[in-house]
């Protein structure tokens, strides 16, 4: 197993980065955090585009940085997908893909054959002879992923791969990434500030705030027990996979949620913010609501609010004020009614 090990400090304008983590081969780590938290800096440190002040970066046996000695980026074989693609405008798509193999010593013909193989594998054949300026944002980002893969990297780093895209393209590229990332055998890192992206693409999530990692866990672990206010706000959302049809989403175990959008069909990702989950001691009445009964598992106190984990046909977390907690007399083991408005349920198609 070739794991990517990062343990570095770096002083940057405005903040100090101090991070330590490991990504196993065949696994995806999401670096999730607000802008300016040090996510992109971490990517640049691993790729060798900037150097840390101290620490160690290694990919298996290959030491990228240790004791002030840095391996140049071109020798690291770390593929990087940049937020705004950075495709070479003077080369067509095929030659953008061939650039990596050419730089590593392949003949022109061999490099082009390799480029065509990747275009084929990723379903981008139609774009081969186009210039980057002729591509849409979604196409350009898929080509950028293909270019990184075609250079035969041993680790793959994606720096906010979706944030430059509009909503429609974002969903397409996200499912493209979900499909093709798992075929890449080395360690993978996705930088994002969107919890949904992290949940859909990563096996583990590292929450990075102010240059430091405040929590590393599986998406489920972070969702159940966010380690900070920020994490709670960002990833403490309820997430379910399901199948949508006619304004209903089947989320498994026979449980169905009513949603506002009646047009969406097929596989979807459903998000419900904990603050949108209402808790009642008796069955709430009226309006097209989702209501069901559940048992309180646990209550976490996060300052001015409490997170209530609930069991039941659909495990869910609610966020309510301490006053409401007391008012409802909530305690582990108590059975309550849950209510979620159809309009408060986010639905995103995952397959196109």
């Amino acid at each position, binding site marked *: 197993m070739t794991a990517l090990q990062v343990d570095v400090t770096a002083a940057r304008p405005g903040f100090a980065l101090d991070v330590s983590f490991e990504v196993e081969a065949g696994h995806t780590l999401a670096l999730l955090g607000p802008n300016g938290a040090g996510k992109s800096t971490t990517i640049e440190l691993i790729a060798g*585009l900037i150097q840390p002040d101290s620490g160690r970066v290694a990919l298996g046996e290959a030491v990228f940085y240790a004791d002030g000695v840095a391996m140049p980026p071109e020798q*690291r074989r770390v593929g990087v997908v940049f937020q705004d693609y950075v495709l070479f405008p*003077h080369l067509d798509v095929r030659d953008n893909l061939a*650039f990596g193999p050419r730089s590593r010593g392949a003949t022109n013909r061999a490099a082009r054959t390799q480029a065509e193989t990747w275009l084929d594998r990723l379903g981008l054949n139609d774009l081969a002879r186009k210039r980057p300026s002729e591509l849409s944002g979604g196409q350009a980002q898929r080509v950028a992923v293909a270019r990184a893969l075609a*250079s035969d990297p041993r680790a793959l780093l994606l720096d906010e791969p979706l944030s430059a895209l509009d909503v429609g393209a974002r969903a397409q590229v996200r499912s493209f990434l979900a499909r093709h990332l798992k075929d890449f055998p080395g360690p993978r890192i996705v930088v994002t500030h969107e919890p949904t992206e992290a949940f859909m693409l990563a096996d583990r999530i590292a929450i990075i705030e102010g240059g430091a990692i405040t929590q590393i866990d599986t998406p489920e672990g972070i969702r159940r027990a966010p380690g900070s206010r920020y994490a709670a706000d960002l990833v403490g959302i309820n997430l379910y996979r399901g199948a949508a049809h006619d304004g209903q989403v089947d989320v498994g175990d026979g449980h169905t949620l009513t949603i506002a959008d009646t047009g969406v069909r097929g596989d979807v990702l459903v998000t419900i913010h904990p603050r949108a989950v209402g808790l009642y001691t008796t069955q709430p009445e009226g309006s097209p609501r989702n209501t069901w009964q559940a048992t309180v598992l646990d209550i976490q106190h996060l300052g001015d609010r409490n997170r209530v984990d609930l069991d039941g046909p659909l495990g869910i977390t609610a966020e309510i004020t301490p006053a409401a907690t007391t008012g409802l007399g909530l305690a582990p083991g108590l059975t309550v009614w849950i209510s979620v408005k159809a309009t408060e349920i986010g639905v995103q198609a995952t397959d196109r």
Partner: protein
Amino acid sequence: MRHPRALWLPAVLGLALVGIPVVSLLVRTPWSRLGDLLGSDIAVQALGLSALTSLAAAAAAFVLGVPLAAILARSRFRGRSVLRALITLPMVLPPVVGGAALLYAFGRRGTVGEPIYEATGLVLPFSPWGVILANTFVALPFLVVTVEAGIRNLDSRYESAAATLGAGPWTAFRRVTLPMVTPALLAGTVLAWARALGEFGATVTFAGNLAGRTQTLPLAVFVALEQDRDAALALSVVLVAVSLVVLVALRDRWWTGR
């Protein structure tokens, strides 16, 4: 935008200051005898020598100037601004002073010229090599300034992306940086060539005015003004035409800043 009326008079005078001499030159040119005048031995020699030396100087400026521009644009070191000022000095220095400086450096007794002469017997001043050297001296800054601006405006992440794809610094420079600044390379080279073609002061000081050997087009015009006005006009027309073609070709790249 509406222009204040007070701007019009000086603006028109300024235009006239440049336009009237050029028009006068064209009006006085003996167009019917142009072929004969340009076909004279002196004219043919000057035209040939100018073509050769200006192209050689442009080539030398390219080979030496592009690396200089790349280093100035992409590296950070102490004294970089002093270096940049030094390289642009020939743009503002009186060419005669440049020619004198070249004599002290590359003359037979010069700091570099003397060892060169003793080792090889080569004498640079008053030779076509001297013309090329003087032309390169005045033309180099035009290329360096133009190409440096081109590289500095290029997002360095293209080079970073090339590095992550396995390209070493030389490959990245050759296959990413240079192709992406092609417009600046073209503009810089053409400007350097045009400046070399029009060179007078440094050339006459360093290389002299030997017909057929160091007498370039501008020198031939100067000499002909004393002896054969029509020949001077004919040669001037050639220089005006070349200059106009260059400026029209570069109009978008050079003065709109791209």
